[in-house]
């Protein structure tokens, strides 16, 4: 194959396992984006999700201290689930949600920093977790991540209808007797599991991008909920694949770009394109007298 063909070949790079595994993980995360990510978007939980990415930190430190690299994932899962429950409970005690998130974020993160400094500095695997190790994940890591994503997607799909009610009209859901607090805990735990799974690939600091950007882009392009979910999955899959492909091409050019950050930037670029398309469509559809939504109503 000529160098030029290799440069534009979209498939071959992924036939080797160290590229195939990250691609598989990013595709699974795309499915999470179209389910768990939609829940985050509808409930405006972006800041909570950010809080969860930071809350994972002390779990990593404790996990590393107990089990080395093998302890990272269990530690992260434990911390994320605890943070998710604490978050849901604090916001229920009359604190504004942003206050609750800020408290959980800072307390968990500073606990992590204190633990690291007490134990004499971080290890290399900790920085892996912050910035991801997309190209070096093992089949074992991938298996755990896929299992976490599977559980998270299942939790959201099973509770989808009451979750939708609680997101649309929380006061109405409470009046209707729905278990709003339990729904919130289930939803936040699902988000936490995806955050941990995404941490393995793009790192905790960029996990937020994988969870929220595809749905944000989909909302810019679509009006219906089902379409938003489908577009978010497609968006996550395409930008994930494009991002990895960019990593390969940059490596060929001799640029050693951080894979997780490259994927996140690709998603942001895709989001900007989606915003532009949405805005252009909105502008062109405003010209005919009745807006398209009204026209649909009248028919």
């Amino acid at each position, binding site marked *: 194959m000529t160098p030029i063909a290799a440069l534009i070949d979209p498939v071959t790079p992924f036939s080797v396992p160290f590229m195939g595994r990250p691609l598989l993980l990013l595709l699974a995360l795309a499915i999470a984006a179209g389910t768990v990510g939609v829940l985050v978007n509808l409930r405006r939980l972006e800041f909570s999700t950010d809080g969860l990415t930071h809350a994972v930190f002390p779990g990593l430190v404790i996990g590393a201290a107990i089990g080395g690299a093998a302890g990272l994932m269990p530690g992260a899962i434990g911390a994320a689930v605890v943070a998710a429950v604490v978050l849901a409970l604090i916001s229920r005690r009359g604190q504004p949600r942003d206050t609750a998130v800020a408290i959980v974020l800072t307390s968990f993160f500073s606990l992590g920093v204190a633990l690291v400094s007490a134990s004499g500095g971080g290890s290399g695997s900790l920085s892996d977790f912050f910035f991801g190790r997309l190209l070096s994940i093992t089949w074992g890591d991938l298996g755990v991540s896929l299992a976490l994503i599977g559980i998270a997607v299942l939790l959201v799909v099973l509770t989808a*209808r009451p979750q939708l009610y609680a997101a649309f009209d929380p006061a109405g859901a409470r009046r209707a007797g729905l278990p709003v607090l339990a729904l919130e805990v289930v939803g936040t735990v699902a988000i936490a599991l995806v955050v941990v799974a995404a941490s393995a690939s793009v790192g905790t600091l960029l996990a937020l991008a994988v969870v929220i950007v595809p749905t944000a882009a989909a909302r810019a392009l679509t009006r219906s909920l089902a379409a938003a979910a489908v577009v978010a999955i497609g968006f996550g899959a395409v930008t994930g694949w494009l991002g990895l492909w960019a990593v390969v091409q940059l490596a060929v050019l001799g640029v050693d770009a951080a894979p997780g950050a490259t994927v996140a930037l690709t998603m942001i670029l895709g989001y900007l394109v989606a915003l532009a398309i949405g805005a252009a469509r909105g502008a062109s559809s405003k010209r005919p007298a009745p807006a398209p*939504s009204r026209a649909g109503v009248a028919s």
Partner: protein
Amino acid sequence: MSAPVVEIADASFGYGGAPVLSGVSFEVRAGEAVALIGPNGAGKSTLLAGLLGLAQHEARVFRVPSARGEIGTLPQSSEIDPAFPVTLEQVVAMGRTPRLGLKWPGRADKRIVADAIEAVGLAEHRGARFGDLSGGQRQRGLLARALAGEPRLLLLDEPFNGLDHGSRDALLETVRRLKGQGVALLITTHDLDLARAVCDRTLLVNGRQIAFDETGCVLTLERVEAAFASHVIEIDGHTLATTEHHEAAHHHHHHVLRDDDAAAAPPR
């Protein structure tokens, strides 16, 4: 005479501190509409919250439907994001959720949802995005959501506020039909004409119960004046006002008084 769906005796309602409303005894029978009337801050919203278990109560007798979905509600206003990507049909289908739990809706549920949309006269809008509907249509949509739960008891909080004449007549017609189907209704309103039009009995409150009887007997000058002691109200063309709060008259029109009841709203 049909069985009471709600039976309350010697009840007080509140949020932990001193009761907001006390000395309440009333009942609502199947197929009956009861009007709940009182000035702002009288405890009407607290009473509704108490029936739903969202406010505290102490009572000698306290019987309300307790199974999920048996009480439907129509709030005074809802904080709903107009950009939320749901259709009217999806919103009304939410009304089935309390009965379905985690089950997915079947054909019967879909028919109930379609009937509820039909009942409020919005069949041609069922595919419209909820946020694109007018205020009155959204309110009717939320009523359809309550109906989709097939409630035994329906709590309507100021349902006639801000409705144009057409929507008002349609809502009155819906209330009559629901009564015919045996649904018990408790309706808060400032509009005494509407109370007379559809409500068999009236519960008049202002921090305590002033009266509970046939609507015509309750809505007398003396009793309404007692309930609205520091407010202004028109009844049968007479303007009632006490010496305090005269300036409030400028804010109120016709028979309709605005109800903010913010202080009595359940805490989030």
